[in-house]
């Protein structure tokens, strides 16, 4: 006799441990006696810590007071957030003139505007947008923050940046709505999309020249009041130093990494020595070197201000770390890619620029974000050599007469700020890692 099942067996219901809360609790928290004990210990720790923090930081805390004594009068055991609240502008902007704060905010807003197209779908030429953020945005923001008279170089750079920003934004809007790029659309409007290539190129060049002329005219009429660098501070200064640090570290790191992998012995040895030198010493020694030795390196009568010294030191330091990130990215590219590039007749720069680097950079993005997080945290070291970055500002709360001795609250506030910024970025880089490797795995 043969039995043939014509209907599939009905599936069993999921075990209780997978569906009910009790089952979950039993499986994950109380599976053995040891686990049960551990769970109870953990619950007790959480209870004590959360209760302590709640009572100190929220329930008994003082939010409005005019000095620390008043805080004590209101509540002796609670946190005194009033001091932090009163210093909040200093913590974020340093001693930047209060009437000029809009410039810092506008600078941040422009960066968001500039980089937003990178995340928008259907926008083309994202590499160009990314590169222009690194190479042009700093000049526009730099002038916005510092103000004063523009040198010829600054005039050119600010013009380029303004035109680029306008172009980027228009390009992104057109891209999102129609999926086309800016040059295509312009040519269509002018009815030249069927014209020969040379005409098209000339038309675009004329348009670019016109845009640059308009931009130049606009920027000559634009002057801002000088804000000396010594007034920069707080989170703003931290972001400026680490932003410039990472923007210069990327090209520097690529050059150093290529040098280290070069076949030419002199270049390889020099790059390796440079990278290892900076990687084997702590950042603080590099900063001390910058402040004590850079003035000696300069020709007589030429004085670098401390901020520039620090930025040079941070850039050199992070370029060497970036070089190792880039090197790891380059090593991940299979040999076949190099060989294929040679076979189609590309030279060294063609091979690197068109074939290897685009692939390697894509895989490096998560690590670059990681380096930026590291640099952002390391930038707090500049407070040791007397710059008032966010940590410097947080520490000066306790030096302020009304708030003398108020240490814990500002530091905790700063820790929360860093925690939020850094963990959001690291979550994002982990997400990118998954997203970018999804295509490679097939």
């Amino acid at each position: 006799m043969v039995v043939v099942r014509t209907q599939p067996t009905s599936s069993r219901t999921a075990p209780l441990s997978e569906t009910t809360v009790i089952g979950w609790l039993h499986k994950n928290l109380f599976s053995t006696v040891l686990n049960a004990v551990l769970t109870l210990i953990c619950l007790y720790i959480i209870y004590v810590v959360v209760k302590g923090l709640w009572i100190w930081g929220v329930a008994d805390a003082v939010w409005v007071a005019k000095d620390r004594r008043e805080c004590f009068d209101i509540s002796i055991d609670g946190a005194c957030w009033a001091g932090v609240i009163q210093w909040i502008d200093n913590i974020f902007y340093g001693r930047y003139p209060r009437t000029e704060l809009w410039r810092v905010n506008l600078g941040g807003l422009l960066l968001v505007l500039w980089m937003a197209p990178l995340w928008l779908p259907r926008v083309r030429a994202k590499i160009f947008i990314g590169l222009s953020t690194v190479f042009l945005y700093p000049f526009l923001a730099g002038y916005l923050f510092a103000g004063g008279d523009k040198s010829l170089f600054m005039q050119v750079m600010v013009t380029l940046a303004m035109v680029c920003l306008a172009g980027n934004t228009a390009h992104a809007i057109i891209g999102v709505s129609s999926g086309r790029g800016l040059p295509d659309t312009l040519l269509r409007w002018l009815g030249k999309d069927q014209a020969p290539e040379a005409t098209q190129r000339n038309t675009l060049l004329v348009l670019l020249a016109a845009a640059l002329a308009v931009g130049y005219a606009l920027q000559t009429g634009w002057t801002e009041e000088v804000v000396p660098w010594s007034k920069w501070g707080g989170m703003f200064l931290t972001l400026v130093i680490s932003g410039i640090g990472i923007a210069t570290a990327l090209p520097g790191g690529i050059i150093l990494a290529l040098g280290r992998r070069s076949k030419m012995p002199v270049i390889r040895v020099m790059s390796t020595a440079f990278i290892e030198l900076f990687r084997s010493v702590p950042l603080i020694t590099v900063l001390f070197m910058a402040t004590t030795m850079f003035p000696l390196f300069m020709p007589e009568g030429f004085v670098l201000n401390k901020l520039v010294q620090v930025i040079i030191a941070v850039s050199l330091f992070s370029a060497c770390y970036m070089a190792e990130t880039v090197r790891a990215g380059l090593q991940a590219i299979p040999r076949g890619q190099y060989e294929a590039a040679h076979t189609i007749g590309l030279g060294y720069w063609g091979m690197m620029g068109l074939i290897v680097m685009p692939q390697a950079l894509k895989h490096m993005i998560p690590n670059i974000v990681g380096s930026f997080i590291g640099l952002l945290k390391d930038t707090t070291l500049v407070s040791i050599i007397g710059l008032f970055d966010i940590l410097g500002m947080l520490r000066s709360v306790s030096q302020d007469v009304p708030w003398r001795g108020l240490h814990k609250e500002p530091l905790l506030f700063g820790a929360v700020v860093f925690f939020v910024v850094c963990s959001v970025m690291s979550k994002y880089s982990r997400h990118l890692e998954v997203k970018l490797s999804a295509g490679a795995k097939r």
Partner: protein
Amino acid sequence: MAVSETDSASVRVKPKERFDFFHDERVRSIFYQLLTAGTVGWLAWYLITTTAHNLEVRGMNTGFGFLTATAGFDTDFKLIEYEPGIGTYRRIFFIGVLNTLLISFFAIIASTVLGFFVGILRLSSNWLVARLALVYVEILRNTPLLMQIIFWYVAVFSILPRVKNSIDLSGGAEVVFLNNRGLYAASPVPGDLFWMTIVAFVAAVIGVFFLSRWAHKRQDLTGQVFPTFSASMGLLIVVPGIAYLATGSPLDWDIPSLQGFNFKGGVSLPPAFLALLVALTFYHAAHLAEAVRAGILSVDTGQSDAALSIGLKQNRVLALVIIPQAMRAIVPPLISNCMNVVKNSSLAVAIGYSDVVALFMQTALNQAGYAVEMVGMTMAFYMTVSLSISGLLNIYNKRVQLVER
């Protein structure tokens, strides 16, 4: 026939090697190298001459003569003898170096132990334990180390009770005290015959070495497992213990006692040392925990299944199969962790622990000048330490990696 045909064809097709000076790869390579070397050389020459000129104009002294000059300032924490006004700058340098090595040594050990512990907790089957470990790791890794160091210093170790109300950490035995001036602990003072105990200990270590070799051999021959671990522990405790008691317990303790305004006797560690040690330990343990977790996860589950199927017990599986393989992935981050501890100990300068940066690169440099020499010496010290740590552990790493093949 066929052979000669192909031969003649290949001779005909072969392009004539013409030496093209501008497009020859070797010529270009030499040209680029000369260009780079020339640029770097010129830059170095320019910096050296400018620096020399600036030093001369400013009337600053140069050379390493200052090393034998006496330093006029004191330091609160030193491992070797030093008197301000008598001790030299060389001595100051060595005090700083020793202090850096001391804090790094303890921080490396403590962070490695804590890091492994937290890394294993991260993999606990208990959901709550794993979550708590994750929270610890995330908080510590996403805030700047300098902020943590300052927090421990100003918010914990500086507001401890005064000397009179010291916390007794030994639970009433009055041998370890903690107060706002630091940690005071009893220090051992070896007596006349204490060397006998040390000799016995060394003998026990040698004994353990031979015991484990013998146990291995016996297991290979007979398959019987000898309880090497408990036997060695017994040997290490019993033999020196007997020697110690037989020679009449020749070890005294120098117990710190309250005299006047402070404790006298014993060993003492300043609050800055404690704050730095705690901060470095917690911060680096969080970083190491992630490496440990990734290392253990990198071992394929098939390995532990296979080990269990040949009848090994759970703890033997861990010790013989999982951990040896996980170590391959853990050792490289362990190397960089050790180096980072040494480098990050330089943040001591922010809270005034006299490490080599604070003492030599800051205080001594401000007192005596000699910027180039002092910066150079400090950097050379860190480079030596970093390169030797990475060298030593790379040797170990190579040995572990070789097992793979």
